[in-house]
């Protein structure tokens, strides 16, 4: 059985693979192809978790292969196995070399505008469970034709967890740097190997031959820290794996590149060495690497301690109800889960209360929700009533609601709750020049540093509103529903926006436009008044009528 290494260890490629292979038996579905395995469809690039995409037979065979070659391989007899592994790594490198060559030939024939990246710097921020990657690229056009698009490539394992990709072109020198946001769209490159997905950045003005441009790219990954061990007890701290490549995956030739990885704590159990690589405190440095060909990939694993709250909202339904009488009522239903390493065995309140620095370090208790200013009638409750542990701080800029779930959340524990509040309408509802009204409200989850797996926003428009349309700065699923509330006759139009994998960077405003005739505002009061009126009229007529048969 694989024993957790206590000291920090350098993992050579061979050892690392061995580690992965042993962990493979534990992790079950997480299957890993051997690095240099010759596979006809995927020449080099073999990312980690694509058990879903790998045909079963190849996988089986690969596993059998590796087992045949690694007979008797055990963690215990490390020394005995060393010469064998060095032999194998030599074999692997030769495969890689062959694959590189073949790829070089292909890429040369396919990409029409000849671009190359002069300098690439990547900073990966692993401090929370939301991974932010800042990429600075200096792209030069070396081909003959001007290029209007620049492509970014991501391994399929990352694409599934990619929440947002933003790009901006930078101008000017250090002091007067200005950023121009650019459009990013997912595309398919025919020559992308191994199911790598591409995003194209559309430049404002095409890049002419010999010119260069500096791009700043931010992309965010959620659910990409894999806890290992999967289950921890209360006294242990949480260790996670981060999988990536030491070399930036790119459809272009990269001349010079460096990767910095910032971990949340200086406790790094292990990390893959790809020379030159180095670690100082909480920062890992891979590179500089010179002259790497397009689609180069060198898998790395960083195994480190991350005790930040892994707060994931599995499902969030935000209901925004507009009343033209002057208020906006927001109801948010949360299904919260701690997505880190699962809690195992006992939960001792004693340990939790008396030794907070050693016990339950990966658990969390507080959540901070940032609400708009001038919020009123805030409530925080669940199915069984009000939850009494919350604090609201309001000022003119924003309101902060600090909430505590009923119990501290350990790995795998869940909680559901509802937050509701009212807002003044004039801050959020405006009239556009063409006479339509629009709601301007913030998308995303008000809770700080949380990932929302599935976010549903329901904008309930007042009864009688017509032609609703939503304007959201990113792709969402939209549909129209009808809901009924008190005294509704035709029902209220509900604009439903759905998005998966939402991170705090999605908290940007969106608009819902609709036509509304103010006469509908008085429909319901009129209805009530007329009902009472007719009732009294009926009473009066009844009292004044003589309907007896006998006179």
């Amino acid at each position, binding site marked *: 059985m694989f024993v957790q290494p206590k000291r920090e260890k350098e993992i050579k490629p061979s050892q690392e693979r061995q580690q992965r292979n042993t962990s493979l038996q534990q992790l079950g579905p997480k299957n890993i192809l051997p690095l240099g395995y010759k596979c006809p469809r995927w020449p080099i690039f073999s990312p980690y978790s694509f058990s879903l995409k790998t045909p079963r037979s190849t996988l089986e065979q690969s596993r059998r292969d590796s087992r045949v070659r690694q007979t008797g391989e055990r963690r215990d007899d490390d020394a005995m196995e060393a010469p064998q592994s060095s032999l194998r790594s030599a074999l692997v490198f030769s495969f890689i070399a062959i694959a590189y060559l073949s790829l070089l030939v292909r890429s040369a024939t396919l990409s029409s505008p000849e671009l190359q990246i002069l300098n690439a710097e990547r900073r990966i921020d692993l401090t929370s469970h939301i991974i932010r990657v800042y990429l600075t690229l200096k792209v030069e056009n070396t081909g003959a034709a001007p290029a209007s698009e620049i492509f970014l490539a991501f391994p399929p394992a990352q694409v599934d967890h990619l929440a947002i990709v933003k790009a901006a072109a930078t101008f000017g020198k250090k002091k007067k740097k200005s950023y121009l946001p650019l459009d990013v769209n997912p595309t398919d490159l025919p020559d992308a190997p191994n199911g790598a997905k591409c995003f194209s950045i559309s430049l404002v003005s095409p890049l002419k031959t010999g010119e260069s441009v500096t791009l700043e790219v931010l992309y965010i990954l959620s659910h990409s820290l894999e806890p290992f061990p999967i289950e921890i*007890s*209360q006294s242990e701290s949480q260790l996670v794996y981060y999988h990536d490549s030491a070399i930036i995956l790119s459809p272009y030739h990269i001349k010079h590149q460096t990767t910095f990885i910032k971990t949340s704590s200086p406790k790094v159990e292990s990390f893959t060495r790809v020379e030159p690589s180095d670690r100082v405190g909480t920062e890992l440095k891979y590179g500089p690497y010179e002259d790497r060909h397009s689609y180069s990939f060198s898998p790395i694993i960083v195994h480190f301690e991350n005790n930040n709250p892994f707060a994931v909202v599995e499902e969030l339904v935000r209901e925004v109800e507009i009343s033209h009488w002057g208020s906006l009522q927001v109801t948010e239903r949360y299904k919260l889960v701690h997505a880190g390493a699962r809690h*195992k*065995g*006992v*939960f*001792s*309140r*004693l340990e939790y209360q*008396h030794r907070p620095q050693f016990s339950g370090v990966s658990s969390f208790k507080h959540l901070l929700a940032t609400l708009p200013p001038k919020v009123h009638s805030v409530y925080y409750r*669940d*199915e*069984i*009533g009000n*939850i*009494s*542990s919350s604090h609201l701080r309001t000022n003119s800029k924003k309101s902060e609601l600090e909430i505590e779930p*009923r*119990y501290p959340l350990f790995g*795998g*524990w*869940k*909680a*559901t709750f509802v937050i509701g509040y009212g807002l003044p309408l004039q801050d959020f509802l405006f009239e556009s020049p063409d006479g339509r009204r629009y709601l301007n409200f913030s998308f995303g989850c008000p809770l700080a540093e949380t990932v929302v797996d599935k976010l549903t926003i329901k904008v309930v428009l007042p009864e009688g509103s017509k032609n609703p349309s939503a304007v959201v700065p990113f792709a969402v699923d939209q549909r129209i529903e009808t809901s009924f509330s008190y005294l509704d006759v035709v029902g209220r139009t509900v604009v439903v926006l759905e998005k998966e994998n939402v991170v705090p960077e999605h908290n940007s405003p969106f608009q819902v436009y609709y036509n509304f005739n103010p006469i509908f505002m008085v429909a319901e009061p009129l209805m009530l008044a007329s009902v009472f009126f007719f009732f009294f009229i009926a009473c009066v007529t009844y009292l004044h009528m003589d309907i007896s048969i006998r006179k």
Partner: protein
Amino acid sequence: MTSEHFASFLVFIFIHVVAFAYYIKGLLSPKMFKVAVTLVASVGMVLCCAVVAVLIAMVASSPTKGWSGRSLSLLDPTYASKYIPIIASVSEHQPPTWPSYFMDINVLAFLVPAGITACFLPLSDASSFVILYIVTSVYFSGVMVRLMLVLAPAACILSGIALSEAFDVFTGSIKFQLPGISRNSQIDVRDTSSAGVVTQDDGVKTDKNEESLKERPSKKNKKKERENAEKALIKPLLEKRLLVLPLEASVISLLLLVLLGAFYVVHCVWAAAEAYSAPSIVLTSHTNNGLHVFDDFREAYAWLSHNTEVDDKVASWWDYGYQTTAMANRTVIVDNNTWNNTHIATVGTAMSSPEKAAWEIFHSLDVKYVLVVFGGLVGYPSDDINKFLWMVRIGGGVFPHIKEPDYLRDGQYRIDSQATPTMLNCLMYKLCYYRFVETDGQGFDRVRKTEIGKKHFKLTHFEEVFTTHHWMVRLYKLKPPKNRIRGKTKKSKTVCVINKASSTTSSKGSGKRNPWQ
């Protein structure tokens, strides 16, 4: 159906028969009526005899003559504690204390005797009914706290009578002595005031009339008139007697009575807000820096509902059955409406057994989690340790191997170092005080005001899975059964090793803190 309902049923049937007979009499001619009476009477007698015979046979077959435990315990207050501990265990079935009378009916407690005397002064049918009503309800409320509800309306009626008599006397004497008012206006005032009194009396009387058997309206009116006439006759007589009361005294007493009423209203509002409306599930305490909320019950129930499997079963004492079902949405073993005494006794037995036996009982019931309520850390008195003696009694009533004296030291229930070993080794003690000593180093129980008897112990068959913020609710999980190992005698050493290995892998952290220490 039990025997205590027969009286009311029979009266109900009898009234209807009589009413029906009168109705028929009105319809038929006298001759026809006689024929009908003989016909119906002969057939009816036979039917009645048959029904009565069946009823008597049914009643006679039961050992308590068809009387239910509850009504028997009303007639004989010691009955429940002798034979049905489960009825006696409910706190609202206990006899009330004097403070609880004062708390619940407050001023009325002093006005009721005055009301009774007032009822005796002119003893009429109505007032004798009221006297009977108050006497029986006082007796019932003396047997059980919950029957204070029966006492409340009777006490209200009687103190109303007392107050009205007192007002009558005081205002009468004031009016008589006041020199400034002319004769004319005096009459007016007296008329209106007496009319007020009369209508008030009528109100009371109509109530009573309705409560006593529903009399015919014509009769009622007649009676009222008669009473009014009586009142009018008595009035001058009374006024003459009232002359003795001096003016100042009556004015002051009137004011005092009004003040008394005002204070009673204040008390009622306070009692309704604090005593009757306070939820028993969210507890609050007032501290120097504001209100402190103890929301432990809902914390535990929310944890159960979110972090356990949907079909897991939770065992707890039956008090928490409904709460667990409603708030945690989990199946319970016994709840507040469990009629099966043996079932409750099974849980009581498990709680009062040592760990292994308890584990076997719970395992046979397919229980996954055990919930106990423990108030020792924050001083919450109605916790499971204080209820524990009833679990022993109820369990012992069905399973004789649980004996109450085993848990008592010289007839005293205690959990300190003087407690009996049976007590210190039972499941309830262990689940409540597991690792409690490590909170303050001594294990001082704030409810029992004593240090606990057994401080350091481990659990072998249960593991702690959740404890709420103030330790008021503690949840334990049954450990999975160990694998059976065959051939114990032959390879005792290997068995031992395997056993150890399996226990460490299957249940890590079951109180084993540091193997190197």
